[in-house]
């Protein structure tokens, strides 16, 4: 489906861009981070499934390739415009009413910590309709419930078209429970998110 005015308008009005993904979404998110304009006028929160003790350099890699400022999330970190935040390994990332992050070491959700559901649900409660959320490729159903909650709060919810996803289960689960308002091809997602420049 082509991008319509409604999508573009909701994207333009969003304060938060939420990106979730797991297996098969890393390269995609890496490319996406590259095209986001420096003055996007929004905060970007990325939740990728990652293992503890795997001292990956995701923050460093993303930061070197992004025009936007990138900050690793620490406890009570304020949520600022034009900044990309990445959920740390071995914590769940939550947001508070006053506009900052808080972290949580409680039980994994869908075997994952960080869990996409946890962050998406928390953002839904605080930012409601002022959110654009995209769920990408992944091998389990984490994120689907969170996306549904966002949709119920009036956020713009998008699932990557499973025909473009390396691992279909994650976006497909969201589609199955009717959590995605739109199912977009990867090229369309890129076109939309680039359009605030």
């Amino acid at each position, binding site marked *: 489906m082509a991008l319509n005015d409604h999508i573009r308008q909701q994207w333009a009005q969003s304060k938060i861009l939420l990106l979730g993904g797991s297996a098969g979404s890393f390269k995609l998110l890496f490319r996406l981070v590259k095209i986001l304009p420096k003055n996007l006028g929004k905060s970007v929160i990325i939740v990728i499934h990652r293992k503890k*003790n795997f*001292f990956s350099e995701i923050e460093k890699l993303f930061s070197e390739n992004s025009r936007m400022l990138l900050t690793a*999330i*620490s*406890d*009570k*970190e304020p949520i600022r415009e034009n900044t990309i935040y990445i959920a*740390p390994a*071995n*914590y769940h990332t*939550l*947001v*508070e*009413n006053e506009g900052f992050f*808080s*972290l*949580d*070491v*409680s*039980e*994994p*959700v*869908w*075997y994952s910590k960080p*869990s996409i*559901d*946890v962050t998406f*649900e*928390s953002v839904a*409660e*605080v930012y409601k309709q002022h959110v654009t959320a995209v769920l990408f490729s992944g091998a389990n159903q984490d994120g689907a*419930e969170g996306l*549904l*909650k966002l949709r119920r709060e009036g956020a713009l919810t998008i699932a990557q078209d499973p025909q473009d996803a390396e691992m279909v289960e994650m976006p497909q689960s969201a589609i199955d429970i009717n959590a995605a308002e739109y199912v977009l091809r990867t090229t369309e997602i890129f076109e939309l998110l680039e359009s605030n420049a």
Partner: protein
Amino acid sequence: MKGTVTKDAITSTQLNELIDIVKKIHGFDFSDYTEASFKRRLARIMMLKKLEFYDLKHVLVNNHSFFQEFLEEITVNVTEMFRDPPFYKALKNQVVPYLSTYQHVKIWCAGCSSGEEVYSLAILLNEENLGKKSFIYGTDINTEVLNEARKGIYSLRKIKSYAENYQFAGLPGSLTDHFTIMYDAAAIHSELKQNTLFSVHNLISDTGFNEFQMISCRNVFIYFETELQYKILDLFYKSLCPLGYLCLGNKETIRSEAFRKKFKVINQKENIYQKIGA
């Protein structure tokens, strides 16, 4: 396995109402806990106990024995042995050499949950030949987890899941070397257990109880509002000997000028500090 429920979220008004009840009836003050995670814990309790919000309030008022169960579930008791292996490496290289200069080393592990961190520290100190002269106090507000901590018995499945941390921490041998294995359970060696003491302590309302060379309070501050963090930092400052060490969780950044005047950064990444000043 799914940790959250997707029923109607608890509103802030309801949350405050409940915090008020708990404070008035049970004397525990949760008003400075961060809201998002506290709400998740409440949702979890409501799911586990199959209670609607109204019923939860009702049992908290009328059923006193329920409060202990509530307390067990409201605080997060997820912990690991050797969580964040680079932290233990930093301790070994940057803190232990100083601790070894003391005649006796007293350590306070605040918010120790089921004891995994206390025993990790005990193993590290023992490996560094400080075992005989060190003593570790583990405290928590939750009596049930303290009972587990005192036993020092963990499922073999858990111990196996901590084995990777142990390897990454760069300690010799394997984690199971420090345990006696009995079928599917593992008991910490008694020589490691004898220099530990577990007791109830509430960081929000209780005062200090000793002077320590090191205080470790990791992944507790993430559940507290900033003002409460400062209050507890003051308690820690007073409870440390001059040049004593403070260890916080590696994401628990303190953004206060006053704090920087009282503590010197020893390891920025692992959030290890040393008491300076008066």
